[in-house]
């Protein structure tokens, strides 16, 4: 994005007090942690305003002074509080270096319209800080779980060793436990057995039905759609209760078949939604052209229609897979101890004897979901390209 406003350097009377304010805030955090907030505020404000003045007015070389500030604060941290403090100091130094020149060079105005008042510019940037905080809130739990899973202790918080980056504070023992403990391995095996079977059922039935639903003339289309989508809408606990009652009547409660059928039902709405969305852009003259050239309905389906809607089918299948792989409420009721899945094992672990192995499992699951997310995103782009909905 090109700049909207020509930038010019700002006066000392503007940026030094602002940097001092930011320095005071940072000083408050560090000071509070060390036991004296007031000292922190004063020292932070003085140190930062001094640095700001020095590197902008006396040194003036941006690149070297930013690195210099980073190094300075890192060394300061190292002297005061060891390796972890050095890292924090370096981060602070880098951020402040960037912040000082951002203000000094007037870059903060570059991407906002020329006519904004200073108050509006301030709001523009505060708004982004707020949004950033919310995004951090969204991502924090995942970011916290990952490092904690390498904890050498059986604690759920960062130990002093971990904060000092002492290698003794880290270990793979929770992962080792996951891969050797028979409870966890049994649960993993069950999950791996149930989810693909359920996914296969959902995809096979769902794709056929989605093709049927996307035809021009379907009687009771709305009613049928409502029924097919209902497993996604009905609260899981109600589905679970109903299935528990009904499946125990017909002898499916506590069997693999029961769990697979239940999970397939839960995954179907996702397949229907993604595949019908793919079929919206499907050009029906292609099937007619295929028929015209002598292809039977089966050949047409597999050689013409299927390759075009395949991305939608696969991402629907991934949704169905993740639904089954993550599902715990229904399996808790429909399954018995023999069908204990990974989420079930996590659930009991969290409710009864919480063990840090859960964090290792959680990390592995996060990595799996990142991989799946990437696949779905790539497929979506490919599908749009195939259907000519987006360039490139």
């Amino acid at each position, binding site marked *: 994005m090109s700049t909207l406003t020509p930038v010019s350097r700002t006066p000392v009377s503007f940026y030094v007090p602002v940097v001092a304010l930011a320095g005071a805030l940072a000083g408050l955090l560090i000071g509070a942690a060390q036991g004296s907030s007031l000292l922190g505020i004063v020292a932070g404000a003085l140190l930062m305003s001094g640095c700001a003045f020095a590197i902008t007015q006396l040194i003036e070389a941006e690149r070297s002074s930013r690195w210099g500030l980073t190094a300075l604060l890192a060394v300061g941290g190292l002297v005061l509080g060891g390796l972890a403090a050095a890292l924090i100091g370096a981060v602070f130094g880098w951020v402040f270096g960037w912040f000082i020149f951002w203000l000094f060079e007037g870059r903060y105005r570059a991407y906002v319209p020329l006519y904004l008042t200073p108050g509006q510019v301030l709001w523009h940037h505060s708004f982004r800080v707020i949004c950033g905080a919310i995004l951090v809130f969204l*991502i924090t739990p995942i970011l*916290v779980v990952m490092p904690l899973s390498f904890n050498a202790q059986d604690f759920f918080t960062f130990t002093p060793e971990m904060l000092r980056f002492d290698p003794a504070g880290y270990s793979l023992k929770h992962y080792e436990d996951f891969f050797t403990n028979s409870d966890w391995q049994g649960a993993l095996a069950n999950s791996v057995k149930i989810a693909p079977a359920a996914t296969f059922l959902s995809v096979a039935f769902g794709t056929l039905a989605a093709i049927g639903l996307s035809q021009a003339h*379907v009687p009771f289309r709305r009613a049928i759609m409502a029924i097919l989508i209902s497993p996604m809408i009905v609260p899981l606990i109600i589905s679970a209760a109903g299935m528990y009652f009904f499946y125990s009547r017909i002898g499916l409660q506590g069997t693999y078949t029961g769990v697979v059928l239940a999970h397939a039902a839960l995954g179907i709405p996702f397949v229907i939604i993604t595949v019908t969305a793919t079929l919206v852009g499907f050009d029906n003259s292609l099937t007619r052209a295929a028929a015209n050239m002598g292809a039977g309905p089966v050949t047409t389906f597999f050689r013409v229609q299927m390759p075009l809607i395949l991305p939608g089918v696969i991402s629907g299948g991934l949704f169905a897979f993740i639904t089954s792989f*993550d599902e715990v409420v229904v399996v808790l009721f429909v399954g018995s101890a023999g069908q204990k899945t990974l989420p079930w094992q996590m659930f009991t672990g969290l409710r009864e004897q919480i063990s840090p192995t859960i*964090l290792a499992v959680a990390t592995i699951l996060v990595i799996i979901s990142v991989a799946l997310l990437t696949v779905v995103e790539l497929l979506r782009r490919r599908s749009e390209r195939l259907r000519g909905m987006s360039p490139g």
Partner: protein
Amino acid sequence: MTRASDPTGPMMAADGTPLKTSLNRALRRQKLRALALIAPLLIFILVTFIAPIADMLFRSVENQIVSDTLPRTTEQLAEWDGDSGEIPAPEVFKALYTDIFIAQERKLHTRLGSRLNYELTGVSSLFRKSGRRVEDMGEVYQDQFEDLNDFWKDAETWNALMGSDAWLAAQTKWDGKSDVPQPQFELREEIAGVLPQTAATFEIFADFVQNEDDDNLAKEDPWALVYSALYDDLIAEPDLSGYAGPGSAELLEAMAAASTFETVDYPAAFEKIDKDWHDIEVWQTIQTYSPDFTSGYFLNAVDMKKSPDGAEMRPENEQIYIKLFVRTLIMSLVITGSCILLGYPVAWLLANLPARTANLLMILVLLPFWTSLLVRTSAWKVMLQQQGVVNDTLVWLGLVADDSRLALINNQTGTIIAMTHILLPFMILPLYSVMKTIPPSYLRAAKSLGATNWTAFWRVYFPQSVPGIGAGSILVFILAIGYYITPELVGGTTGTFISNRIAYHISSSLNWGLAAALGAILLALVLGLYWAYDKIVGIDNVKLGG
């Protein structure tokens, strides 16, 4: 083709049929093909999903257990007037004796007791106690018959008296070990005429021994209940002259002696077991729940109960469900509200940033959306603990003293924080897709016409984003009120939802009817919201992360 171009007749298709018919047939074929494609899935969903839901709804009104377990009592009790203030007639107690005797042999009385205990506390122990001691009543007669003649002591002589000759021969031959099934008991024809009650009771006994207990009938002494029935038959002085089968002499002797027997006063005997049997309320409860279908579970689910004068509220200290429903609704509203508050700015930012940056930030929204629910819940459980990361950070910063760490988990705060985080993507995604369609030029136009930032936002931008807020809110709200896992794990006792109560009734208290009724109410609520969602957004427009 010549006929098709005839201007006077109907338009014809190539094969000579009228075009209209031909088109109709093609349309019908198309419809059938579409339905044929949908049918497998529709049947699948109907069997695996809709049928269970229907079954649950049925269970919320089903109530056959009382009339199944106490068939004679409920029949007799139908004539009793619950408002009279008097305990039922002795015949009812006698029927109760028979019913409980059979029920305790089949181990069904405790189940009935716990069923009725939902309605009236204390009934469970009443039935358990009665089941243990009901045999004493029959033994009064059993002892007297056995003292009178050793003939009455033996399984062998009883079988000879009650069973047909053919069956008796088959039963004596059966060795009890081979794979041949036990010969089914067959009643001696003459005996049913002279001793109707004894015959009926003995048949129940024989059926129970042979089919439910899988024991050898030839070796089982009859229940005390059979002796009571025999006494009742003999005291009526049946005409035994026509009977000449085995035991006819003993029967005559017993009939003569029966008038001198010590008798059992059933109402008094039951009062001796537990004086609650002379409590009108117990009988009213049994009478109220005699029918096969009941609205009792639904009344229970809204803190009401059935009484002889119709439905009434339960006493203040027993009212929990309305409170729980209200709490679920309020907490879901709070969660929806915080999702709007947090989701709106982020959606706005994503919709107004250049595509490349927006896509990058979108990953931060989609990653939690794709992460396992349990992973996120466990993360919050770990972070919000007393010794968790959040409290540790606050203590480190000096914002909270070490000895007064915040209670962030196992209460409503925990549920609200964790669920807001979990449901936030469901708010951001619909908001984003709506905001993406609002042209940014509108805001600029408003501003160039002199509107302040706030006016331009509030009068121009906000109204256009309302559909997104509506869609996101209903989605989040629907998901929130039915949530089970997260409140269960981080909600403690004060932060749980109605769904946790449903799960409790299914797996712990085993009050399935109440669980089904609570579920039905929750389902109605959700379907109402779903209908509203369909009206506002359209179910076809549900999008997943794209």
